[in-house]
């Protein structure tokens, strides 16, 4: 009974996705090819990675607008650590991911220590972290990475794009953590009623801190993968990425008010978005048309979910 209602949005989404895939496959015979599908997986890896911790963030009733900026900051610092400070590249990569984590921790501290609403806190750090990226890089690019580094973003492992393995591994881990562990249960409880969670002896502040830190860490990782994919660092990397990420998560059925949402939903939302982008392009629709379609699909999916769940409640 509850399992069914729990999965209701995901079911709708799956249905929508199947319909979209069928329609898009009709539009172009090049859409439903292994080649294209793997390629799309490569393209959506960064947004996908960011969407996973964002699901946790939104389930707690929060939001993280700064992921795009953390992404940019980590990318820039990867270049700076390696090229500017002359550190070995593997160490620079680790440090870049770590910087992402620290930036996320900064968000978490502002939110938990000072009770600043996440929307505002991350709106501020959106500007702050991007500003740091621009200030540090002085807008210069770092290029000329060694060949092995590109395996991460451009290579393949066992026939699948390398980053897809990362995405899959973290997605599975995220699904298990959110769905089956005490941490996940705490996350839902915080989103549904933060006060009651605290009064039940759950460590609300620590949980949120971990989630925002995780969001930063994954943003750092995504940045490293992205740098590897495009072979260069620039301070404007990831601008506007947060909107794509949030769209995928919300499309996936996670309630913006918190307390509800699943990793599977997020993945479905992500795939639907990417399928639309690719399929419509192959079908001859231009980029601006695709943007409109995604906007409409977002509103329509939530609308549909609302209508059905209201009927269900009686």
């Amino acid at each position, binding site marked *: 009974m509850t399992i069914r209602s729990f999965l209701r949005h995901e079911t709708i989404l799956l249905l929508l996705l199947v319909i979209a895939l069928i329609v898009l496959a009709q539009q172009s015979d090049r859409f439903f090819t292994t080649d294209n599908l793997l390629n799309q997986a490569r393209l959506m890896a960064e947004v996908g990675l960011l969407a996973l911790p964002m699901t946790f963030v939104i389930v707690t009733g929060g939001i993280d607008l700064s992921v795009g900026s953390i992404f940019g900051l980590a990318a820039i*610092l990867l270049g700076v650590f390696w090229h500017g400070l002359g550190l070995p590249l593997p160490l620079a990569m680790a440090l870049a991911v770590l910087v992402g984590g620290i930036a996320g921790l900064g968000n978490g501290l502002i939110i938990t220590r000072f009770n600043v609403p996440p929307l505002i806190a991350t709106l501020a750090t959106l500007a702050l972290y991007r500003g740091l990226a621009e200030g*540090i890089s002085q807008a210069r*690019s770092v290029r000329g990475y060694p060949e092995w580094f590109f395996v991460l973003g451009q290579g393949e492992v066992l026939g699948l794009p390398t980053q897809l393995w990362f995405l899959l591994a973290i997605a599975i881990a995220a699904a298990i953590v959110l769905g089956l562990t005490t941490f996940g249960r705490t996350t839902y409880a915080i989103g549904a009623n933060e006060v009651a969670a605290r009064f039940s002896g759950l460590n609300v502040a620590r949980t949120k801190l971990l989630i925002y830190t995780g969001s930063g860490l994954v943003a750092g990782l995504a940045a490293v993968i992205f740098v590897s994919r495009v072979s260069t660092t620039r301070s404007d990397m990831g*601008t506007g990425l947060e909107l794509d990420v949030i769209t995928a998560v919300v499309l996936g059925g996670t309630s913006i008010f918190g307390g509800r949402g699943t990793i599977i939903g997020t993945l479905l939302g992500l795939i639907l978005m990417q399928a639309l982008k*690719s399929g419509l392009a192959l079908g001859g629709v231009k980029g601006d048309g695709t943007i409109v379609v995604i906007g409409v699909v977002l509103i329509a999916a939530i609308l549909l979910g609302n209508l059905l769940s209201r009927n269900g409640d009686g």
Partner: protein
Amino acid sequence: MYKTMILALGLAVGSGGVAMAQSAWTGGDDLPTSPLACDGAAGAAAAMPYDGGQPTAAPDLKGQKITVVDVPKLIGIGYFNATSKGIADAATELGSVDAKTDGPTKANIDEQITFLDNYITSGVNGILFAANDPVAIAPVLKKALSKGIHVVGYDANSTPDAREWFVNQAQFNGIAKSMIDNMAKEAGEEAAFAIVTSTFTTPNQARWIAEMAAYQAQCHPKMKWLETVEAQEDNVLSFNQATTLINKYGDELKGIFGMTSVATPASAEAVSQGGKCGSIAVVGLATPNAMKPYVEKDCVKSVVLWNPVDLGYAAMYVLRAAIDGDLKPGATSVKAGKLGELQVINGSEVLLGQPYTFTKENIGNFDF
């Protein structure tokens, strides 16, 4: 523990900042410059061997119907509208070409790569591009080459081996010379000037600024470089920034360079609304239509630009020639319809010509 971590972030950020901020900043990039001689004598251009890439196993499509996609830096600005028009004109002229323009709504590499990738999958025969980042765009272009798709760049280059040809609208040092010379003529040899650019991360602008600095130091050493401000690709912000520069420097400021087709008209507007027409010269890159009002009332004397419609037109012709096998590595020139023979330089670049200076006399003849 948190304090330590925050401290660590601070240190990381700080050391990074120090590491990157050794040189004074003007808005130029840090690549080597090659300023032209002050009298305009062409430097001895050493003939370079072909350094472009080649598509693998490209089908022979000579004279057949082809589909071509044009992916500019971004869509929705006048400049790329003009190049897109040139491409469409050439496509019509050539007949059997189905060309369309599609691209991101902001000058963003992530999105541009996605667009290219999708079009590669959709099976176009040729790609025209203007890169948001020369290195970042290279992998996806190489992928296109590997699938037998012909790739030609225009406006903003990629690394050479990622495309076959690049249609160069004007060499960086040529633009720089033209800009600085015009400013010296209008504002005087000892003029102090400032620059309004888009963002510091746009490669072409950074390159031009670097070349301008080098050329100015060499040929107009008494001119004074005040500062460079950033104004995105945003009309109103450009206007505000230019106005602030005028307010800050007062009579000291003799000239403003606009580095983009957005910044130049906005700077002209700022000068015009500030009542400084005649006392502050505006020189910049811009499209004629946006500049007509200012040129016509003598607020702006010279607008430097190649003809972007021609640029798109030439790019389309070069692509067709490459597909048809008429333009092969080692060629020294290529026929480009009404533009006649275009010269091949730097190994794999096709030169559009010298930058064009629009003035009151001729600006009425252009409509783009």
